[in-house]
Each structure stands twice: as structure tokens, then as C-alpha cells.
């Protein structure tokens, strides 16, 4: 467990006026390990992050709950929010920018005409029915805005399951015709990296950005997710797997078996069908759903709201005939 609270950490940071060299190197070491270079490459990561000009990032919000941004902002030790701020130049992000109204829009226009290019991050599904009129920013539909911005970007990252695959608003009956970034913007040549999850681990997002800056494009799987983070099932990495293997299943949440940490498969765990690194990366280096006693709901899989629900029952789908 990390020492102290997030608030204590922020108070300490406030007096320092930025990220200390020690914190920064710690972050670089962690990142080098996380993207598969090994801790010895911390200096290389630090070099790549500090010598290049800070890349401009435009962060767009579509049909979403802002949970992904909130998750990113609450990343703990090292403080990703501060480090991200000093590593990238976040030129447009509706959640954290100080500007509002026309000033915010002017910042966006300035960022997308930057001759050095920019990275576009999209959070949330894109409504497409009726010309996309279900969501507008500054009088422009989200569909139009994303197509205009993402088609000019050097790289596009879809942050969260909604941007990757449509998410909750694309679940049946999907009245607004919400789609993921790649599906909606294929016609304008967008091929986004999907950082799936609801919310995704902030480490996966930051790891992808660091990978783009240091080693270039990461390897992607069938669903355009980086295989570094989405290469294996939650089940294969689960600390409760030994209980699954020995047939020790908790049958209710308040049972003594659940308290003993038995397998949650019969309480609806979708870990065997879900590709993510939650058990090894942990959220904020503290915990993840199964460790907290809640089954995996399969949130990094396409259409998980329809295909893997109800959440607290195992899938009932025997072969037909």
C-alpha cells in the first residue's frame, strides 16, 4: 500500500512546483519495465521524453462519462497527471482546461493547425444516427468534430471501451447509433490504437504514449489493442486461478468461501474471456476488481454490455443441438 493519501501527495507536490528529478526517474524506470524494456532502460526513456519537444495532444470528449479522464487524473505514485503535464503539451481537453467557450474553441483550432502535428485522443462513443445530432460541441456534431480533428492527427488513441468499441451507448437498442472511433471514422482514414477498459488502467494509456514516443507503434491485437497490455486473459494472470483449477468456487458474495478468496467464476466472472492486464498492473498500484471481491465484467472486450451480461451470472450458452 502506498503511504499517505493522494491529498497528502498533492500538498507535497504543491510546494515543489513540478515533478522532482527523483520522481521523474522513478516514473521512467517503471515505464521502461512496463513497456517491456526492463528497468535498465530508464535513462533511455528519460532521454526520449526530455529531449524531444513536448508533443501536442488534443483530447476530445464524445458520448462518455469522463470516467477514463478521471481515472487518468487519479493515477497514483508516480503522479501521472503531473508527469503527463510535463511530458506532453495537453492543448485541448474539456475536462481539465481552464479556458471555456470560444476561448477553448480557439485553443482547439490553434492546436490542430500546429505545423508540427498533434496526437488525438478520443474518449467516448461517437453518435452517428441522424447526422450525429445526439451530441454537439460548439454547435458542431461530435461525429464531424472527431472526423475533422482525428483525420489530421499524426496518431489517434481511443481511450476507454466507448471510444474503442462504442461502449454502453452502443449497447442494444443503441438509439443514437453510437460507434467506436475506428468503426465511425474508417472512411476518413483513422486507425486508432484502442486502450479498452471501463475505465482502462491509466498505466496502459501512459505506457502507450511512452511507447509511441520511444519505440514507435506498439504491436496491436485483432481489436487494435496493444498486445503489451492486452495480450493475455485476466484469468491466466488471476491470483485466484488456483481455486478455479481445484474447483473451489464461491456461490454467493456473503458466503465464507467468498471471504476465503475462492474463485468468482460462478458469480459471473468473465476473466477467462477478457484480455487485460488488471491482475498484474493493478489500479493505482493498489487493487483490482477480483482482489476486492468483485468478478471481472469483461469491460475491455467489444460489446461486453450485450455479450457478457448479466454481470453476476456465468455465461449460459451451451452448444446448440
Amino acid at each position, binding site marked *: 500500500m502506498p503511504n499517505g493519501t493522494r491529498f497528502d501527495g498533492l500538498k507535497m507536490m504543491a510546494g515543489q512546483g513540478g515533478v522532482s528529478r527523483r520522481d521523474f526517474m522513478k516514473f521512467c524506470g517503471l515505464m521502461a519495465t512496463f513497456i517491456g524494456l526492463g528497468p535498465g532502460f530508464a535513462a533511455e526513456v528519460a532521454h526520449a521524453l526530455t529531449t524531444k519537444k513536448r508533443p501536442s495532444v488534443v483530447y476530445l470528449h464524445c458520448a462518455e462519462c469522463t470516467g477514463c479522464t478521471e481515472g487518468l487524473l487519479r493515477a497514483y505514485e508516480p503522479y501521472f497527471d503531473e508527469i503527463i503535464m510535463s511530458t506532453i503539451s495537453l492543448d485541448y481537453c474539456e475536462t481539465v482546461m481552464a479556458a471555456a467557450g470560444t476561448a477553448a474553441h480557439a485553443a482547439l483550432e490553434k492546436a490542430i493547425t500546429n505545423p508540427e502535428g498533434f496526437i488525438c485522443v478520443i474518449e467516448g462513443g461517437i453518435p452517428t444516427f441522424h447526422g450525429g445530432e445526439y451530441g454537439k460541441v460548439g454547435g458542431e456534431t461530435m461525429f464531424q468534430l472527431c472526423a475533422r480533428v482525428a483525420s489530421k492527427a499524426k496518431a489517434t488513441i481511443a481511450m476507454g471501451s466507448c471510444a474503442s468499441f462504442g461502449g454502453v451507448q452502443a449497447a442494444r437498442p443503441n438509439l443514437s447509433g453510437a460507434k467506436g472511433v475506428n468503426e465511425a471514422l474508417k472512411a476518413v482514414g483513422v486507425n486508432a490504437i484502442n486502450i479498452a477498459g471501463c475505465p482502462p488502467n491509466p498505466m496502459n494509456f501512459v505506457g502507450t504514449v511512452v511507447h509511441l514516443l520511444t519505440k514507435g507503434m506498439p504491436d496491436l491485437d485483432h*481489436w487494435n489493442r496493444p498486445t503489451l497490455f492486452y495480450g493475455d*486473459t485476466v484469468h491466466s494472470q488471476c491470483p485466484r486461478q488456483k481455486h478455479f483449477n481445484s474447483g473451489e468456487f464461491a456461490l454467493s458474495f456473503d458466503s465464507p468461501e467468498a471471504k476465503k478468496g475462492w474463485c468468482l467464476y460462478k458469480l459471473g466472472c468473465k476473466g477467462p*474471456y477478457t484480455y487485460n492486464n488488471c491482475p498484474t498492473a493493478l489500479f493505482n498500484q493498489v487493487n483490482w476488481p477480483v482482489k476486492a471481491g468483485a468478478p471481472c465484467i469483461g469491460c475491455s472486450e467489444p*460489446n461486453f454490455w450485450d455479450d457478457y451480461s448479466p454481470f453476476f451470472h456465468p*455465461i449460459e*450458452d*451451451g*452448444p446448440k443441438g
Partner: protein
Amino acid sequence: MLRNMLLFVSLTAMLIFAVTTVLAYEVPDKVLIERPKGNQKLNSWVAPVSFPHGFHAIRLACRDCHHKETDKTLGKYVPCRQCHTDDDPTAESGFYRAWHSPGPPSCLGCHTQMRSEGGKNPVGCTTACHKPK
């Protein structure tokens, strides 16, 4: 004219019959997938899986699953477990990973992918393959 046509049809039929007789090989309807001998069991309750081979054979090309086979080995395809023998569940082409890898030709990989693309194929551990007795 009619005689010629009849001759042609009967000759063609005979040729097809001859070719199919030479090339005939058995496509099993059910295959019992067992651990290779001497392979350590990973799990206490999972029994050998009765795989509906025929069901898959009429829906997919043979080489979708028999990924190392060629035209020359037609009719002599080997079972998965002849190569995928390692009992370490993390070994990339081990026994466990042969059925549980991210994409085709692994069973679970193909089923999850098709399900996410709108298919209704089963993926549940205890409902699709490993039904408890």
C-alpha cells in the same frame, strides 16, 4: 448425340467416383481431446473434452485449425495434441495455450472473436467445453 452425352456423363461420373475413392479419408465426427501421456494435469475437475469435429469440419476449412498442414499431407492430418504437448500453461504452444490463445486457430480465441463480431457461438468455460459431470 444422346448416346454421346450418356457416355460423357457416365465417364465423368466414373472419373469422379475413382478420384473420390482414391482420395477418400475419414473425417471423424467426434474427437476426444485428452492430455498427452505423462502430461501433468492443470486442473482437478476438467475432464477430457468431447470435441464436435464434424460440426466444425463442415463449417470451416480444415487448415483454419490444422494450421501446419499442406496439400501434400491431405488425409494424414495430425491431431493438435501431437505437437502441443507442453504441460506448462504459460508455454506459448503448450497444451493449454493450444485451446486458450487470443485468436484463431485456438478454440477460445476464435469463439470470443466471433462472439464479439455478433456470433452466437458458446464461450462459457463450464457451458461450452468443460461441462461438470
